[in-house]
């Protein structure tokens, strides 16, 4: 199908060589994707589509509703008694047959595939139910009875490092797992001599570019050789393969990992399937059957993976005219509950490029790695870049503002000069190529900065809130596998030996009829790598892309791979693509030698084209590619003496520029460094406070574009993800550690309706370090767009601190100031102040025609409590002041069964009491306390109550929109029923708990009291 019509000539990235001339190289042309036909017909082969072995069982995972708790007991008997349930795995089961995951830091922060003894975040896996199908497995999961002892929690990293903070991993001694200080040049001197110091504190929030396909694992324990055969949509890096094998206590060769042909997106996230690969492997071993697990969206949004949130204090030493002479960073990066390999990658991935696009020779940096009670952080597209550039590019705007300069002038004044590439940054990165000035000139010229300025001027004259933002980004491609060792002090690095490089491998085969096939060390995620590889290989062999057959499934027992394998850190263009080029070149050279012998010429005289191999000097002297290559299979006797028969070559690429960190902590963190310059205009809607992107221009220099159509696809995708981080997506935890963004109704992925058009531009300064001249380009806008929009909002509203994501309610609070008091006679809405520091607080009062003594009696009598507690089925007395109850609670149709513990304390007879307790059930858990006071009012009594409740688990993460109101309704019921019982034996109708909205009236009706 690849022919002239299959070249997209409508791409904005249309380039000179994008012509329908078949003699032109395929690399550089917008060849349409070979992947598409199958995907468009529903014939993709994703992990959940692939046939499973006979006898496969299905898993569901029981997850913690607590952010931090000790596991007190686990009763699996009810689940095991359910027909169709085969096994239930617990932390204690897997502890006996596996080891904790290896981590990068030498710290005692053990994480197993299932929680052992303690849970540290909401959603942490605590048990696995294995059943005949997923439906029954979920039924079983609801029947696993886990009791927890809640522990104090810490969510905010600033609080986590305080000496009195609860410590997540007691053996580590602190939540601050690593503090490293770095100095390059003479930052102290530069700051001392500076005209001015400009400083800023920024916080990058938690988000995840959640792919549409969730995790899938099919694990099969093979008893015959004590090995594991696993199919999973893992994305790499394969440096994690040894981590999994070690946890399973087998050598790497006995963990066969197979990656299917298609994957429904990854964006870094599908690294984090690895703990589940181990978990389901163990499940298969224990069950004695293959086990399949398909993560659902609830599981994904609460426990799959998040980017780390980072608090950065940044300072610039500046001259009078805005030249930055030094930067100083204090980075505090929050990795959540565990430090999974390869964390803390995001804190170090950009290390060499910390000074961004600027020629700044003095740099001081403190890097802190912190743990908190949130889901573990891991790979997310951008990987450290968004966090870094939020600080750097917000600061550059502040420099301009504080010096009264134009922000773009300040950017230009500090850029690395054109002509100074390759350029070594002070922290050790070796920027391969670029012309930042040209890129910015073209973007502001062709991209019409004057138009943006005119729009702003007009808007401001009309009183509208309009701002312009800029951002420059140096975009790394293909990470140096040694960058993470920078976290270790020099002495430790010397002891351990150097770590560096990023090995890429591609294999090209030519079969007996001349058909070319390729396998590669990457994982498919949708980028169109097969199309790009087919272009590269076709060019080397004088064929068309359609002549090249490509299989990008990966099998660790049969394919060539290194620890760098996978698709991440934009390693395709600078890495795997080069290995494909090298492998094809080797084939070309060998075929040239074979042909030279047959065509009676020399190899140097051989050329390839149009499916033929021929003599350059006499093109008629040639033969079909298939005929020449067939020789290697059919006629070894005709092979040149120096060559072995067969035609199979592996291209291995490990660029020399990726050196280990130096003794001065200088590190070339990546091989290629692209450039992005963004500018945008935004307007804030005065009614909704929603940020609307009016125009967005994004200029890219990614070296040579292998396929402009694919390149632009990556940029468009990254742009919308960057936009999402700026305006929509956030993983939200409340103060009690409950996750509140558990569905796609709470975690707001932008749709087409939220996405503005983006104007893309390109220049090309080919990389001298890669044979194809291509650089990585798929992450740039994840790095540039959040801060570009933040800068525009700051400009629109004259803000110094711009909270991300910039949501309407946040801007409303910033723009509108304090709310005026309500009109006379109207009560203000309940405020959180006073009662409790819980997430949900409130108060109320009920007046009842009963004496304090009657009310007191009702409160202390289990039989009365049965009627007071909404939806109560039974009450048993644990101790005189402690009751346990089985209750059904809910609002409207939503109903769940819970076990409630109610404790009475601070008893002042007939005057006051504190009720505290907790609820647990499949829908979630709640903890709270309330204080009740009784005041006689003539023959009646006024009951005043205040309460604070924290709600966690499923109901908090999926019902965020309604949960607070629902809690208020249920609590209101409790006190109204208390009033009811006390005033003379009204039955609280224990089977229904949805009186709520009506309750004010029914209580009045029944009791004659007034509210």
């Amino acid at each position, binding site marked *: 199908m690849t022919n002239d019509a299959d070249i997209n000539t409508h791409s904005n990235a249309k380039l000179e060589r994008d012509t329908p001339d078949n003699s032109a190289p395929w690399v550089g042309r917008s060849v349409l994707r070979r992947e598409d036909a*199958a995907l*468009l*017909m*529903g014939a993709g082969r994703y992990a959940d589509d692939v046939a499973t072995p006979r006898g496969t069982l299905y898993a569901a995972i029981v997850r913690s509703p607590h952010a931090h708790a000790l596991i007190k007991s686990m009763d699996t008997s009810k689940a095991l008694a359910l027909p169709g349930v085969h096994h239930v795995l617990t932390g204690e089961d897997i502890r006996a047959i596996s080891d904790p995951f290896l981590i990068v830091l030498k710290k005692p922060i053990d994480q197993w595939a299932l929680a052992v003894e303690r849970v540290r975040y909401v959603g942490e896996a605590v048990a696995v139910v294995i059943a005949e199908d997923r439906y029954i497995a979920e039924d079983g999961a609801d029947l696993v009875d886990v009791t927890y002892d809640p522990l104090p929690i810490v969510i905010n990293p600033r609080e986590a490092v305080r000496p009195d903070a609860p410590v997540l991993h007691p053996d580590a001694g602190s939540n601050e797992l690593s503090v490293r200080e770095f100095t390059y040049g003479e930052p102290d001197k530069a700051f001392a001599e500076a005209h001015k110091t400009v400083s800023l504190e920024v916080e990058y929030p938690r988000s995840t570019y959640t*792919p549409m396909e969730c995790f899938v694992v099919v694990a099969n324990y093979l008893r015959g050789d004590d090995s594991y055969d696993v199919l999973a949509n893992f994305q790499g890096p394969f440096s994690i393969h040894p981590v999994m094998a070690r946890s399973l206590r087998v050598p790497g060769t006995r963990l066969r990992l197979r990656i299917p042909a298609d994957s429904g997106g990854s964006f870094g996230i599908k690294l984090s399937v690895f703990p589940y690969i181990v978990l389901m492997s163990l499940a298969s071993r224990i069950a004695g059957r293959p086990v399949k697990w398909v993560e659902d*969206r609830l599981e994904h949004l609460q426990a799959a993976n998040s980017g780390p949130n980072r608090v950065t204090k940044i300072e610039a030493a500046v001259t009078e005219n805005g030249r930055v002479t030094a930067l100083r960073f204090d980075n505090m990066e929050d990795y959540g509950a565990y430090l999974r390999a390869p964390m803390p990658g995001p804190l170090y991935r950009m290390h060499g490029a910390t000074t961004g696009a600027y020629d700044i020779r003095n740099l001081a940096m403190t890097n802190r790695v912190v743990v908190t009670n949130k889901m573990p952080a891991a790979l997310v597209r951008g990987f450290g870049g968004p966090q870094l550039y939020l600080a750097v590019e917000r600061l550059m705007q502040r420099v301009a503002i504080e010096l009264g300069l134009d922000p773009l002038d300040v950017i230009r004044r500090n850029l690395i000069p054109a002509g100074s590439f390759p350029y070594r940054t002070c922290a050790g990165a070796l920027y391969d190529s670029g012309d930042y000035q040209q890129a910015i000139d073209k973007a502001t010229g062709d991209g019409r900065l004057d138009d943006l300025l005119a729009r702003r001027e007009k808007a401001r004259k009309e009183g509208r809130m309009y701002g312009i933002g800029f951002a420059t980004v140096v975009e790394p491609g293909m990470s140096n596998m040694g960058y993470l060792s920078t976290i270790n002090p020099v002495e430790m690095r010397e002891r351990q030996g150097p770590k560096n490089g990023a090995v890429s491998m591609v294999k090209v085969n030519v079969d007996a009829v001349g058909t070319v096939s390729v396998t590669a060390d990457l994982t498919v995620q*949708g980028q169109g790598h097969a199309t790009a590889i087919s272009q590269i290989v076709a060019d080397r062999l004088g064929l068309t892309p359609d002549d090249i057959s490509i299989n990008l499934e990966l099998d660790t027992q049969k394919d060539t791979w290194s620890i760098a394998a996978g698709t991440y850190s934009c390693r395709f263009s600078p890495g795997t693509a080069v290995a494909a080029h090298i492998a094809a070149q080797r084939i070309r050279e060998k075929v040239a030698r074979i042909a030279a012998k047959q065509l009676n010429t020399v190899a140097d005289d051989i050329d390839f084209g149009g499916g033929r191999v021929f003599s350059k000097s006499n093109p008629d002297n040639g033969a079909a590619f298939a005929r020449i290559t067939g020789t290697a299979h059919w006629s070894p006797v005709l092979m040149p003496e120096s060559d072995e028969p067969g035609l199979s070559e592996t291209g291995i690429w490990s660029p020399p520029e990726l050196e280990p960190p130096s003794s001065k902590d200088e590190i070339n963190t990546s091989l290629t460094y692209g450039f992005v310059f963004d500018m945008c205009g935004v307007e804030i809607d005065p009614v909704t406070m929603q940020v609307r992107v009016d125009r967005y221009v994004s200029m890219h220099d990614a070296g040579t574009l292998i396929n402009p159509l694919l390149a*632009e696809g990556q940029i*468009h995708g990254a742009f919308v993800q960057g936009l999402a981080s700026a305006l929509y997506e956030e993983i939200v935890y409340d103060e009690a550690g409950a996750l509140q963004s558990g569905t796609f109704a709470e975690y707001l992925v932008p749709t087409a309706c939220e996405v503005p058009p983006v104007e893309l531009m390109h220049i090309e300064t080919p990389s001298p370090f890669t044979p194809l001249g291509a650089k990585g380009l798929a992450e740039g806008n994840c790095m540039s767009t959040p801060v570009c929009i933040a800068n525009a909002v700051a400009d629109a509203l004259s803000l110094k601190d711009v909270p991300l994501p910039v949501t309407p309610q946040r801007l409303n609070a910033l723009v509108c100031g304090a709310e005026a008091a309500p009109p006379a006679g109207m009560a203000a809405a309940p405020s959180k102040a006073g009662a409790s520091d819980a997430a949900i607080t409130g108060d109320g009062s009920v007046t009842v025609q009963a004496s304090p003594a009657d009310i007191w009696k009702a409160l202390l009598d289990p039989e009365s409590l049965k009627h007071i507690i909404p939806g109560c089925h039974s009450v048993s007395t644990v101790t005189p002041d402690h009751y346990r109850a089985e209750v059904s609670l809910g609002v409207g149709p939503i109903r769940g069964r819970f076990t409630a513990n109610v404790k009475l304390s601070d008893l002042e007879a007939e005057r006051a009491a504190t009720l505290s307790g907790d609820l647990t059930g499949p829908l979630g858990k709640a903890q709270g306390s309330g204080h009740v006071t009784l005041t006689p009012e003539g023959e009646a009594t006024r009951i005043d109550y205040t309460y604070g409740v924290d709600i966690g688990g499923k109901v908090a993460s999926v019902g965020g929109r309604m949960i607070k109101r629902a809690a208020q309704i249920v609590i209101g019921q409790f006190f109204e029923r208390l009033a009811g019982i006390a005033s003379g034996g009204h039955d609280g109708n224990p089977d229904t708990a949805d009186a709520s909205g009506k309750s004010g009236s029914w209580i009045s009706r029944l009791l004659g009291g007034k509210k």
Partner: protein
Amino acid sequence: MREVTTGETVRISLELNGKTVSGNATSRMLLTDFLRSELGQTGTHVGCEHGVCGCCTVRIDGVAARSCLMLAVQADGRRVDTVEGLAASKDALNALQRAFRKHHALQCGFCTAGILMSFSDFLSRNPNPDEDEVREVLGGHICRCTGYDGLMKAIMEAAADMRGKTPSHAGAT
């Protein structure tokens, strides 16, 4: 009255892409699971199972709907069209499919089937939509890869192509 009790397995028949097929289902089996596991139609994907992402969109009696918000037993006797029915072979892609390819309107392809099914319904009822109408319908889907740019272009072009205003070039040889 049809009653399927808890735990009971019943035979469900439906007209799938023009052919009558049948399979076993329990009362609670979702249509997505029935299509994928019982009928082997894995082109319909599961993205969220709460009706937001649109990956599982199919046509029920011609009308686009989320198959995760429907029970298999509800589809009994109905006409169900899925992505597998759109083209007989890779050389016979329909106008929408061709435009998707031409404009790079898909990357990982996971959300693609649902979007194709939504627009095969929508464009049949609204052959001449403007961009805002298309964007609103596309707003019922989440795509994480493409940024929607290629999707918008592809759908607008396919609509024009289907109206016959512009001759079809995409993918033709």
